[in-house]
Protein backbone atom coordinates (compact mmCIF):
# COMPACT_ATOMS: atom_id res chain seq x y z
CA UNK A 1 0.00 0.00 0.00
CA UNK A 2 1.06 3.56 -0.67
CA UNK A 3 1.89 5.88 2.25
CA UNK A 4 -1.15 7.80 3.49
CA UNK A 5 0.15 11.32 2.83
CA UNK A 6 1.00 10.33 -0.76
CA UNK A 7 -2.57 9.09 -1.23
CA UNK A 8 -3.85 12.31 0.25
CA UNK A 9 -1.85 14.35 -2.27
CA UNK A 10 -3.17 12.16 -5.08
CA UNK A 11 -6.80 12.53 -3.91
CA UNK A 12 -6.37 16.29 -3.56
CA UNK A 13 -5.10 16.52 -7.14
CA UNK A 14 -8.02 14.46 -8.47
CA UNK A 15 -10.60 16.49 -6.52
CA UNK A 16 -9.12 19.83 -7.51
CA UNK A 17 -9.08 18.73 -11.13
CA UNK A 18 -12.72 17.61 -11.09
CA UNK A 19 -14.30 20.05 -8.64
CA UNK A 20 -12.17 23.18 -8.94
CA UNK A 21 -13.09 25.97 -6.52
CA UNK A 22 -15.87 23.90 -4.94
CA UNK A 23 -13.26 21.63 -3.33
CA UNK A 24 -12.02 22.63 0.14
CA UNK A 25 -10.04 19.68 1.51
CA UNK A 26 -9.93 15.90 1.72
CA UNK A 27 -9.55 13.58 4.72
CA UNK A 28 -8.64 9.88 4.56
CA UNK A 29 -9.13 7.05 7.01
CA UNK A 30 -8.66 3.29 6.77
CA UNK A 31 -11.95 1.39 6.56
CA UNK A 32 -13.27 -2.14 6.04
CA UNK A 33 -15.18 -3.23 2.93
CA UNK A 34 -18.17 -5.53 2.63
CA UNK A 35 -15.95 -8.63 2.33
CA UNK A 36 -13.72 -7.60 5.23
CA UNK A 37 -11.04 -6.22 2.91
CA UNK A 38 -9.23 -2.95 3.53
CA UNK A 39 -10.76 0.12 1.90
CA UNK A 40 -10.14 3.85 2.10
CA UNK A 41 -12.79 6.17 3.51
CA UNK A 42 -12.34 9.38 1.53
CA UNK A 43 -14.21 12.38 2.94
CA UNK A 44 -14.29 15.33 0.58
CA UNK A 45 -15.16 18.70 2.08
CA UNK A 46 -16.95 21.03 -0.35
CA UNK A 47 -17.78 24.72 -0.20
CA UNK A 48 -21.15 25.56 1.38
CA UNK A 49 -24.15 25.10 -0.90
CA UNK A 50 -22.40 22.76 -3.33
CA UNK A 51 -24.49 19.87 -4.66
CA UNK A 52 -22.81 17.59 -7.17
CA UNK A 53 -24.58 15.98 -10.13
CA UNK A 54 -24.67 12.23 -10.62
CA UNK A 55 -22.12 12.54 -13.42
CA UNK A 56 -19.74 14.47 -11.16
CA UNK A 57 -20.15 12.04 -8.26
CA UNK A 58 -19.32 9.08 -10.49
CA UNK A 59 -16.51 10.91 -12.31
CA UNK A 60 -14.70 11.67 -9.04
CA UNK A 61 -15.13 8.08 -7.90
CA UNK A 62 -13.82 6.65 -11.18
CA UNK A 63 -10.90 9.11 -11.32
CA UNK A 64 -9.93 8.29 -7.73
CA UNK A 65 -10.18 4.55 -8.32
CA UNK A 66 -8.04 4.71 -11.45
CA UNK A 67 -5.49 7.11 -9.93
CA UNK A 68 -5.07 4.94 -6.84
CA UNK A 69 -4.75 1.75 -8.87
CA UNK A 70 -2.19 3.36 -11.18
CA UNK A 71 -0.14 4.33 -8.10
CA UNK A 72 -0.26 0.73 -6.82
CA UNK A 73 -2.83 1.37 -4.10
CA UNK A 74 -5.22 -1.61 -4.01
CA UNK A 75 -7.77 -0.17 -1.58
CA UNK A 76 -11.12 0.93 -3.05
CA UNK A 77 -12.02 4.54 -2.25
CA UNK A 78 -15.37 4.84 -0.48
CA UNK A 79 -16.14 8.51 -1.06
CA UNK A 80 -18.45 10.75 0.92
CA UNK A 81 -18.98 14.50 0.79
CA UNK A 82 -19.67 17.12 3.39
CA UNK A 83 -19.18 20.81 4.18
CA UNK A 84 -17.59 22.47 7.20
CA UNK A 85 -21.06 23.53 8.38
CA UNK A 86 -22.43 19.97 8.07
CA UNK A 87 -19.45 18.68 10.06
CA UNK A 88 -20.16 21.21 12.82
CA UNK A 89 -23.88 20.36 12.87
CA UNK A 90 -23.19 16.62 12.91
CA UNK A 91 -20.81 17.05 15.86
CA UNK A 92 -23.44 19.08 17.73
CA UNK A 93 -26.15 16.47 16.99
CA UNK A 94 -23.86 13.71 18.22
CA UNK A 95 -23.06 15.61 21.43
CA UNK A 96 -26.79 16.20 22.06
CA UNK A 97 -27.59 12.52 21.52
CA UNK A 98 -24.72 11.50 23.81
CA UNK A 99 -25.98 13.87 26.49
CA UNK A 100 -29.50 12.47 26.21
CA UNK A 101 -28.15 8.90 26.42
CA UNK A 102 -26.09 9.79 29.52
CA UNK A 103 -29.12 11.34 31.22
CA UNK A 104 -31.24 8.32 30.40
CA UNK A 105 -28.57 6.04 31.86
CA UNK A 106 -28.43 8.14 35.08
CA UNK A 107 -32.25 8.07 35.36
CA UNK A 108 -32.24 4.30 34.90
CA UNK A 109 -29.55 3.90 37.59
CA UNK A 110 -31.53 6.09 40.03
CA UNK A 111 -34.71 4.08 39.31
CA UNK A 112 -32.80 0.84 39.94
CA UNK A 113 -31.46 2.20 43.27
CA UNK A 114 -34.95 3.24 44.34
CA UNK A 115 -36.36 -0.17 43.41
CA UNK A 116 -33.57 -1.85 45.41
CA UNK A 117 -34.31 0.40 48.42
CA UNK A 118 -37.99 -0.49 48.31
CA UNK A 119 -37.19 -4.19 47.97
Amino acid at each position, binding site marked *: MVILHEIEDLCRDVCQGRLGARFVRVALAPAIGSDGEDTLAVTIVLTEGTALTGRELIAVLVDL*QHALTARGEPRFPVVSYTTEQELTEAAADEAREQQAANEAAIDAAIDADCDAGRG
Partner: protein
Amino acid sequence: MPVPDYRHLFEQAQNLIAPSAAGPPRQVDLRRAISACYYGLFHFIAAHAADEFVGATCRPPSKRSAPYVRAYRSIPHGHLKAICGQGSGANSIFSSPLKNFMVTVLDAQDKRHSADYDPSVRYITRNVTDLLTEARQAVDDFRAGSADERRRFLAMVLFQQTKGK
Protein backbone atom coordinates in the same frame (compact mmCIF):
# COMPACT_ATOMS: atom_id res chain seq x y z
CA MET B 1 -46.36 -10.81 -6.68
CA PRO B 2 -44.41 -8.68 -9.18
CA VAL B 3 -40.63 -8.34 -8.95
CA PRO B 4 -39.43 -5.48 -6.71
CA ASP B 5 -39.32 -2.23 -8.66
CA TYR B 6 -35.89 -0.60 -8.19
CA ARG B 7 -37.49 2.83 -8.58
CA HIS B 8 -39.63 2.17 -5.51
CA LEU B 9 -36.51 1.40 -3.49
CA PHE B 10 -35.01 4.70 -4.61
CA GLU B 11 -38.27 6.43 -3.63
CA GLN B 12 -38.19 4.67 -0.28
CA ALA B 13 -34.71 6.11 0.33
CA GLN B 14 -36.01 9.55 -0.59
CA ASN B 15 -39.01 9.21 1.73
CA LEU B 16 -36.85 8.12 4.66
CA ILE B 17 -34.92 11.39 4.57
CA ALA B 18 -37.85 13.71 3.93
CA PRO B 19 -37.74 16.77 6.23
CA SER B 20 -40.07 16.56 9.22
CA ALA B 21 -41.12 18.78 12.11
CA ALA B 22 -39.37 16.39 14.49
CA GLY B 23 -35.95 17.49 13.19
CA PRO B 24 -33.31 15.86 11.00
CA PRO B 25 -33.76 12.21 9.97
CA ARG B 26 -32.77 9.67 12.60
CA GLN B 27 -29.57 7.68 12.10
CA VAL B 28 -31.56 4.47 11.59
CA ASP B 29 -33.56 6.13 8.80
CA LEU B 30 -30.38 7.32 7.09
CA ARG B 31 -28.95 3.81 7.38
CA ARG B 32 -32.09 2.22 5.91
CA ALA B 33 -32.07 4.79 3.10
CA ILE B 34 -28.47 3.95 2.16
CA SER B 35 -29.36 0.28 2.19
CA ALA B 36 -32.37 0.96 -0.07
CA CYS B 37 -30.13 2.74 -2.60
CA TYR B 38 -27.91 -0.33 -2.91
CA TYR B 39 -30.85 -2.71 -3.07
CA GLY B 40 -32.40 -0.56 -5.79
CA LEU B 41 -29.31 -1.25 -7.91
CA PHE B 42 -29.22 -4.90 -6.89
CA HIS B 43 -32.83 -5.55 -7.90
CA PHE B 44 -32.29 -3.56 -11.10
CA ILE B 45 -29.48 -5.99 -12.00
CA ALA B 46 -31.35 -9.12 -10.89
CA ALA B 47 -34.43 -8.21 -12.91
CA HIS B 48 -32.42 -7.35 -16.03
CA ALA B 49 -30.41 -10.57 -15.76
CA ALA B 50 -33.50 -12.75 -15.36
CA ASP B 51 -35.35 -10.86 -18.11
CA GLU B 52 -32.39 -11.32 -20.46
CA PHE B 53 -31.72 -15.02 -19.92
CA VAL B 54 -35.09 -16.42 -18.88
CA GLY B 55 -37.48 -13.87 -20.34
CA ALA B 56 -39.64 -11.07 -19.01
CA THR B 57 -42.75 -13.05 -19.94
CA CYS B 58 -41.77 -15.52 -17.18
CA ARG B 59 -41.82 -12.88 -14.46
CA PRO B 60 -44.01 -13.72 -11.47
CA PRO B 61 -46.94 -14.17 -11.22
CA SER B 62 -46.60 -16.17 -14.46
CA LYS B 63 -47.20 -19.90 -14.00
CA ARG B 64 -43.84 -20.42 -15.72
CA SER B 65 -41.97 -18.23 -13.23
CA ALA B 66 -39.92 -20.92 -11.43
CA PRO B 67 -36.77 -20.59 -13.61
CA TYR B 68 -37.15 -16.81 -13.55
CA VAL B 69 -37.19 -16.80 -9.75
CA ARG B 70 -34.25 -19.20 -9.65
CA ALA B 71 -32.19 -16.91 -11.88
CA TYR B 72 -33.28 -13.79 -10.00
CA ARG B 73 -32.24 -15.25 -6.66
CA SER B 74 -28.94 -16.72 -7.86
CA ILE B 75 -26.74 -13.61 -7.62
CA PRO B 76 -24.50 -13.56 -4.53
CA HIS B 77 -23.41 -10.09 -3.43
CA GLY B 78 -19.76 -11.15 -3.24
CA HIS B 79 -19.84 -12.45 -6.82
CA LEU B 80 -21.45 -9.23 -8.03
CA LYS B 81 -18.68 -7.32 -6.28
CA ALA B 82 -15.98 -9.40 -7.94
CA ILE B 83 -17.48 -8.91 -11.41
CA CYS B 84 -17.87 -5.16 -10.89
CA GLY B 85 -14.31 -4.95 -9.55
CA GLN B 86 -12.91 -6.63 -12.67
CA GLY B 87 -15.23 -4.82 -15.06
CA SER B 88 -14.66 -1.29 -13.76
CA GLY B 89 -10.85 -1.40 -13.94
CA ALA B 90 -8.92 0.87 -16.30
CA ASN B 91 -8.05 -2.08 -18.59
CA SER B 92 -11.55 -3.54 -18.70
CA ILE B 93 -13.23 -4.35 -22.02
CA PHE B 94 -16.36 -2.44 -21.01
CA SER B 95 -17.22 1.07 -22.18
CA SER B 96 -17.23 4.07 -19.82
CA PRO B 97 -21.00 3.99 -19.13
CA LEU B 98 -20.86 0.34 -18.04
CA LYS B 99 -17.71 0.98 -15.99
CA ASN B 100 -19.49 3.89 -14.31
CA PHE B 101 -22.39 1.61 -13.48
CA MET B 102 -20.11 -1.05 -12.01
CA VAL B 103 -18.04 1.34 -9.91
CA THR B 104 -21.27 2.75 -8.49
CA VAL B 105 -22.42 -0.75 -7.55
CA LEU B 106 -19.10 -1.26 -5.70
CA ASP B 107 -19.48 2.07 -3.93
CA ALA B 108 -23.11 1.43 -2.95
CA GLN B 109 -22.33 -2.08 -1.75
CA ASP B 110 -19.59 -0.92 0.62
CA LYS B 111 -21.81 1.89 1.89
CA ARG B 112 -24.72 -0.49 2.38
CA HIS B 113 -22.52 -2.83 4.37
CA SER B 114 -21.30 -0.05 6.67
CA ALA B 115 -24.82 1.33 7.06
CA ASP B 116 -26.17 -2.07 8.04
CA TYR B 117 -23.33 -3.30 10.26
CA ASP B 118 -20.91 -0.59 11.42
CA PRO B 119 -22.16 1.25 14.54
CA SER B 120 -19.20 3.67 14.51
CA VAL B 121 -20.25 5.51 11.36
CA ARG B 122 -22.41 8.63 11.67
CA TYR B 123 -24.49 9.72 8.67
CA ILE B 124 -25.81 13.01 7.40
CA THR B 125 -28.64 13.53 4.91
CA ARG B 126 -26.16 14.39 2.17
CA ASN B 127 -24.77 10.83 2.34
CA VAL B 128 -28.15 9.57 1.15
CA THR B 129 -28.90 12.27 -1.41
CA ASP B 130 -25.47 11.80 -2.99
CA LEU B 131 -25.78 8.01 -3.16
CA LEU B 132 -29.30 8.28 -4.55
CA THR B 133 -28.19 10.77 -7.21
CA GLU B 134 -25.25 8.50 -8.07
CA ALA B 135 -27.43 5.38 -8.25
CA ARG B 136 -29.96 7.06 -10.55
CA GLN B 137 -27.17 8.26 -12.82
CA ALA B 138 -25.70 4.75 -12.80
CA VAL B 139 -29.00 3.32 -14.07
CA ASP B 140 -28.93 5.85 -16.93
CA ASP B 141 -25.30 4.87 -17.62
CA PHE B 142 -26.23 1.18 -17.75
CA ARG B 143 -28.91 1.96 -20.32
CA ALA B 144 -26.40 4.01 -22.33
CA GLY B 145 -24.23 0.92 -22.82
CA SER B 146 -24.65 -1.21 -25.94
CA ALA B 147 -27.04 -4.18 -25.83
CA ASP B 148 -24.08 -6.52 -26.38
CA GLU B 149 -22.04 -5.33 -23.45
CA ARG B 150 -25.08 -5.16 -21.17
CA ARG B 151 -25.75 -8.80 -22.05
CA ARG B 152 -22.09 -9.67 -21.44
CA PHE B 153 -22.16 -8.04 -18.02
CA LEU B 154 -25.43 -9.72 -17.05
CA ALA B 155 -24.10 -13.11 -18.17
CA MET B 156 -21.01 -12.65 -16.00
CA VAL B 157 -23.20 -11.74 -13.06
CA LEU B 158 -25.61 -14.61 -13.53
CA PHE B 159 -23.27 -17.44 -14.55
CA GLN B 160 -20.40 -17.95 -12.17
CA GLN B 161 -17.24 -19.41 -13.65
CA THR B 162 -16.37 -22.77 -12.13
CA LYS B 163 -13.19 -24.79 -12.42
CA GLY B 164 -13.58 -27.61 -14.96
CA LYS B 165 -12.92 -31.19 -13.92
